[in-house]
């Protein structure tokens, strides 16, 4: 069994390794999102005039200007919003709304094993009419608002992968990595 000293040396070497030094962490105080930015993606930094609902990571190493029109890019994002309307207040309804509202089509079965650790999640896939694929994973958290509905969490989280069929498997690996490392812990 390695000694505590060995552990300390190992930990220090990991922290000082080039990979560790490159890892940046996205944090959102309002919605309680913390997630390491995957290596090799382009993180779209929100403008100071925009409400930051969560991180958008572009895949496939595009130019940073591609952040202006993400519809035509492969991306992974986490989008948080207040759970504020009847149509999305329950998790299953929220998923359906995301399928039709974001993906423009019905929910279909998602690839296996998509979930966020420690959270109740639902997942679906949408085959968009323009040929793109959306993989959607939804969850909810936060103290309920009794003035709206005391039985539902106050924040909806939508983790999404937007990709093309030929990149699906490749991009799913990054999506799974984001799902496994994201922490959602709203203070409200």
């Amino acid at each position, binding site marked *: 069994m390695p000694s505590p000293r060995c552990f300390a040396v190992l930990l220090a070497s990991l922290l000082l390794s080039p990979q560790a030094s490159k890892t940046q962490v996205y944090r959102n105080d*309002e919605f309680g999102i913390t997630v390491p930015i995957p290596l090799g993606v382009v993180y779209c930094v929100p*403008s100071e005039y925009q*409400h930051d609902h969560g991180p958008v990571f572009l895949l496939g190493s595009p130019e940073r200007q591609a952040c202006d029109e993400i519809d035509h890019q492969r991306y992974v994002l986490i989008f948080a919003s207040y759970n*504020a309307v009847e149509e999305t207040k329950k998790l299953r309804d929220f998923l359906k709304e995301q399928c039709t509202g974001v993906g423009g089509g*019905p929910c279909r079965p998602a*690839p296996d094993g998509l979930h966020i650790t420690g959270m109740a999640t639902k*997942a679906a896939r949408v085959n968009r009419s323009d040929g793109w694929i959306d993989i959607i994973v939804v969850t909810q958290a936060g103290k309920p608002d009794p003035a709206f509905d005391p039985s539902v969490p106050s924040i909806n989280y939508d983790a999404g992968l937007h990709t093309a069929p030929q990149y699906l498997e490749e991009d799913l690996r990054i999506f799974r990595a984001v799902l496994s490392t994201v922490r959602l812990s709203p203070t*409200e």
Partner: protein
Amino acid sequence: MPFINGKFYMNPAYGRALERARRASSIWSEALPQFAGSALRKQNFSDDLPSGDAEQSSDAHWVTINGHHVLLDQASSQRPPTEDTQHPERKRHLSARDKSYLDKYYDAVTVLAKKYKVDPVLVLGVGIESGFGSGGTYLRTGDAFGMTGGSTKRMTTATSPDENVKQFFDNYGNQIRGTGTDTSAFINALQGRNASGERVKGWKVYNIANPHWESLVNDGINTMKKDIPTYLSQKKTEQSR
């Protein structure tokens, strides 16, 4: 011949069962054979089944039309109209949160919306950004429209709903001017696009995370479309007392 819901089945019992299953799982498409097996079973959508499914099968009955034996589904074809379909202008319930939001914002938005020739309902729908004035960020900043946020370093702050509404129109009024009741044109304008969806140089973009943000605002607008008639009706009743 046994036709069920317009489809021919040699075995009527099999046909009825298949059609029931199709209705119950209508959110899944049959076009994805690679995922139609294990993943479908693992998804827990039991709550998604239509609540009246059992009644649908018991209400169905056979009739003969032009010599064809047809199973008519009474529950779906003769479902009684709901409150929403009978009276689309009525909303079932106005939450205390939405009433509070409209008490603060309805008048202020209506005045400036008229000036900019845009339906106030559309502008009020953007209040979903703050959970219609209920999110903690709103309580700290007074900005119901989510003009900034996320980072606590850069926040739009307003001391009153009037000031907040003025900030919204100062920032986006010229872009949304004249969009009237056209939700699509309104959202396009907020996102820096003209009514045809083409990017307009120099226009601000409300939120980069489209189409997720656009879907969110669309939900907000739909909620306000239902809330506002109820709100105005309640207000009128209160004033007449």
